[in-house]
């Protein structure tokens, strides 16, 4: 049972690990790493379902009758491109966050935002009193 579905067990473990990293870590770069692990697990899921026992690469040649399904590989090539683009954009935003906040820790950023908001309301009440 476990041996026959080995790929799928790996997929589930990676998927859960990835999702856990995304949710639990406060560091933005670690979040992106978790997202990557999560996406990779789905890539493995697709690749595993395209495999046919005893099948070879889908190139017609003499002596072979069983071929693996190439469609899932093509789909995943597209999904990998999407994943790379997401990672690149995520990292780019992280760099800009670091420039703006001087930190990439989610809790620190939230704290700074709250402080900022308090200051803004304080300023606007002062203005309102003066007018």
């Amino acid at each position: 049972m476990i041996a026959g579905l080995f790929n799928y067990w790996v997929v589930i473990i990676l998927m859960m690990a990835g999702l856990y990293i995304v949710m639990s870590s406060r560091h933005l770069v670690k979040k992106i790493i978790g997202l990557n692990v999560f996406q990779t697990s789905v890539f493995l899921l697709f690749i595993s379902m395209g495999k046919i026992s005893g099948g070879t690469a889908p190139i017609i040649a003499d002596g072979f009758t069983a071929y693996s399904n190439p469609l899932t590989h093509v789909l995943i090539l597209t999904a990998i491109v999407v994943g790379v683009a997401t990672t690149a954009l995520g990292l780019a935003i992280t760099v800009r966050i670091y420039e703006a906040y001087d930190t990439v820790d989610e809790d620190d950023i939230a704290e700074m935002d709250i402080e900022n908001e308090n200051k803004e309301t304080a300023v606007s009440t002062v203005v309102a009193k003066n007018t």
Partner: protein
Amino acid sequence: MIYQLPAIVLLLTLLAAPICSMIRNGDIAWKLAVIAAWLSVAASMALMHQVWGGNEISYHMGGWPPPWGIEVRIDELSALVLILVTLFGSLVITVLRESLRTAMRSHRHSLYYTTFLLCMASLIGITITGDAFNVFVFLEISSLSTYALIARGRDRRALTAAFRYLIMGTIGATFILIAIGFMYMVTGTLNMADLAVRLPEHADNRVVQASFAFFIVGIALKIAIFPLHYWLPNAYTYAPKATTAFLAATATKVSLYVMIRFIFDVYGVEFSFKQMHIDALLLPLSVAGIFIASLIAVFQSDVKRLLAWSSVAQLGYMSLGIAMVNVAGLTATVTHMFNHAMIKAGLFLCLAAMIYRLNSSHIKDLAGIGRSMPLTTGAFAVLGAGLVGIPLTAGFVSKWYLINAALENGWVILAVMLIISSLMAVAYIGKIIDVAYFKPAPAQHKDVKEVATSILIPCWIFALLTIYFGIDTRLTAGVAGRVAETLLGVGL
């Protein structure tokens, strides 16, 4: 030419985007973007004309017949969403130049138009495609361009909002990818029409049921159905002014379209409602979303954030219509999808015009704006009436169908609750109108002037359309009614 229209409507914006990125001059890029966008409006109108009355277009990309090739499939529902995306997108892109002038250095403008066009093109792609994997790819293109658009906001909190949306959006899209993978595992096809034929045989298969669960959670994240709306308020609040109008009008509505398409067409009514009981999940969540989000909106002091929370509440109305499982309910969902897109885009655009002059979206700063900017505030008031659902505005039509649907199911309490929730909308819109017309303007805003005509005209187009679709409902409720009958499989 006519035969190629389904491809042309997508290619116009998709090809204009990379060309825009190569033009250094922002003005020329803007002209190109505007021309491409308005041509795609014309194309989608022509498509609507072709499918009017319940026809369907099936276009084979590259001449490969489905299920092997990629099929483009357009019926009245997709044509309506197509008009929604292209028309409201084009109206926003027309004012974008004026809005960007102060926000960004001019050599960056053409890149912004590129991102905007890419977002529009991918939303068009989601709407017309008949291939499940294509939906995922276009969904990701639209999400990626949306993150980039939001991150261009002036406040640094725009960056964290974009990052948060990126994490949530990617998880949602990956869930959809898992769902599509499971469907492919069982049926061996990705064509949506083909899936619809093959899935019922496997309705008892655990894999199909798991795929349904993954799909619903993934797409609910994208639509921002309560309680998965976590990313929406900040994303709308900190996105650049005019861009918020575009996002509020299109992104969530197209995701909702995908949900309708998959629940009713691909998985089928029998499976979604009789076996998986999706209505039992959507009904309480929608009602809770309507009330909680409306309540939060009432207590907001930033008008942009107020409207964002109101969007979460309005999305509750749309998912509620699905949960009713009757023709009137689904009619309400589709009608409200169009009407709310129009109203909210108009409201955000008027607000953008006000922020343009006031440099603030705090409700205190809007005091007396009804006298200094009468035309903008007038449009805002008309659109606000539409949001509340006052008769003779578009918002009334959709709420009417929704209440009818509740009564049809015998849910009188729900109908009463819907009316109460409308009163909450009166509270938060009334709060703005009250400040705008009946409070004296603060000293620093004494010399505020009306915005340029190029911004005013789109604002008033939205306002007049809101009134027009409150009276002539052939395009909205008429189409929605036919679509609802087809999707639920009655009347034909």
